[in-house]
């Protein structure tokens, strides 16, 4: 019963209040300090006070003014609730509820702010993982529809073909690399003379005539195809689009409204570069796909090396493939290291390579 500690404030006492102990004797509140006094519980007014609204106050009127007992500490407040006579207990409970309400309100405000801050940090920190996750949420149909739009854009500038020896060879090698994929791949050869190849969302792969003309063997072409296929399989283009177009676009795509967004996104498509991390992933997965299909895995490295040598010797403009796939020394070294580690019962592809190159659309020999 002596667990209730408080401070008594009264006109003739020290201004700061004096420490007292409280106890209830029936309907009386006994206040024990330097002197003892009893107050009828019915006369007590309960309110909440204190710097942070966390103190219970029991006040009553005497002849010389207001007297009050303040109870700041939570344990004493609980003891007060437990021991108060029925007449008072409801008021005291109300006071306690007020205190809890203030605390709860504040905790909610702080909690919300902290959560928001954490969320911002998390999004910033995990933005790659989030774009990847979002890219996986886009349906294959939407993806294909974006791919089709992009394809139409490219077709407006270049002649694309699925006919002829070159396109047939590309489709054949591609078919070996993408056996069992969830995508239905389509292979195009463009009459663009730039050394480049790209993958559009939904399984559309475009190989420039310039690349086939520059490739030294079908193995090198296969390596490039394997690499591009990985961009499709892992939805790298979508990830880059999400990154570039922002998340508002993603939401629209996820909701199915493609038209407006694709217009913006396709406009950017030419400028989209996969990050180094995505390129490295495509390199590695591409090599695995090659090994799985029984095609020699060294094609990418030898292709890059020759392009780089050509660039150095001729001083020409950087080929598109190199500008979009930065072939740093480390990358080539990594490619060569990987090609040694991968176990593969591989046989070089046997095609009449000069004949294929001769059949390219629009190649000036």
């Amino acid at each position: 019963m002596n667990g209730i500690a408080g401070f008594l404030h009264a006109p003739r006492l020290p201004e700061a209040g004096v420490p007292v102990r409280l106890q209830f004797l029936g309907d009386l509140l006994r206040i024990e300090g330097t002197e003892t006094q009893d107050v009828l519980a019915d006369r007590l007014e309960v309110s909440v006070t204190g710097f942070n609204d966390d103190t219970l106050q029991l006040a009553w009127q005497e002849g010389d003014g207001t007297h009050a007992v303040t109870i700041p500490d939570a344990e004493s407040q609980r003891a007060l609730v437990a021991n108060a006579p029925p007449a008072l207990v409801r008021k005291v409970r109300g006071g306690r509820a007020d205190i809890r309400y203030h605390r709860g309100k504040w905790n909610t405000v702080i909690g919300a702010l902290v959560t928001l801050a954490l969320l911002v940090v998390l999004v910033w920190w995990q933005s790659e993982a989030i774009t990847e996750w979002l890219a996986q949420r886009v349906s294959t149909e939407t993806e294909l529809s974006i791919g089709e739009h992009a394809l139409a854009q490219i077709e407006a500038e270049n002649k694309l073909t699925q006919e002829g020896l070159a396109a047939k060879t590309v489709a054949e090698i591609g078919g070996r690399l993408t056996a069992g994929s969830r995508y239905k791949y389509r292979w195009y050869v463009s009459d663009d003379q730039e050394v480049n190849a790209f993958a559009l969302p939904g399984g559309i792969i475009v190989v420039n005539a310039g690349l086939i003309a520059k490739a030294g063997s079908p193995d090198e072409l296969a390596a490039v195809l394997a690499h591009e296929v990985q961009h499709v399989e892992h939805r790298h283009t979508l990830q880059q689009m999400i990154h570039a177009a922002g998340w508002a676009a993603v939401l629209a795509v996820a909701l199915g409204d493609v038209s407006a967004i694709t217009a913006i996104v396709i406009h950017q498509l030419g400028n989209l570069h996969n990050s180094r991390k995505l390129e490295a992933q495509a390199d590695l997965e591409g090599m695995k796909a090659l090994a799985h299909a029984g095609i020699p895995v060294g094609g990418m490295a030898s292709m890059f090396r020759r392009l780089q040598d050509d660039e150095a010797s001729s001083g020409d403009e950087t080929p598109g493939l190199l500008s979009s796939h930065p072939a740093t020394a480390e990358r080539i070294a990594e490619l060569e290291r990987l090609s040694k580690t991968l176990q593969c019962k591989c046989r070089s592809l046997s095609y009449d390579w000069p004949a294929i190159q001769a059949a390219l659309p629009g190649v000036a020999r």
Partner: protein
Amino acid sequence: MAPLTHRIEGSDLQFVEITLAAGEAVVGEPGAMMFADEAIEMDTRMGDGDDAGFFGRLSAGFKRAFTGENFFTSVFTNNTSRPLRVAFAAPSPGKIVAVDLASIGGTLISQRGAFLGGTRGVRVGVAFKKRLRAGFFGGEGFVMQRISGSGTAFIHASGTLAQISLRAGESLKVDTGCLAALQTSVTYDVMYVGKLKTSILGGEGLFLAQLKGPGVVWLQSLPMKRLRASLLGASVAQNRGSAAKIAYFLFIIIFTIIMLSRLP
């Protein structure tokens, strides 16, 4: 713990001289010491200058730094058998007040940076004002100082410090920024000044702090912010005066030239 024997000297630029009994120790903000007897031992410690563990002292240090105090505390100990003196000076024009913490329930809440020194063992912590409107408009911000312990604490505020006691339910309108310290039993909130005319022309701003008893509050007559504003205002007014003079002369010269050029 017995209150410290001390003497506060000066009228507006004060210092407090404390007489330490044999074995007694005080803490002070680094840089606050004015003089000390030769035999006083000085030591600088992280945190509140008590014998807490390393992490306790580290966290105490951060709490202090957060509330406008120094990360470190200077401890002054009298290890002799005779009484010795040490004095702390106030960092700015204003008053020093000695508060016997035991007499106010063990805890005092003050504005940031108010703590000057006190009995060794007095802790300076963070009193977070958990009310958005008071934090934003109350003039003291969200973070105040919680000075707790059982000895004497010396607090300092600019201007003159008025100690006012409030009875239960009695409440006081206070200009924001004038609140220097308060007992924990006092409710601190803000209120709208009440009338549009007053809020615009009254010069007190839109809000007033509201302090409601029971308990003791300390109010400062000249908050640092106001002192700064009036000094800055005076210096700007001076500049504006000279600029106006130059503009006036320019106007007269141009006017004269125009008049002269129009003469036949």
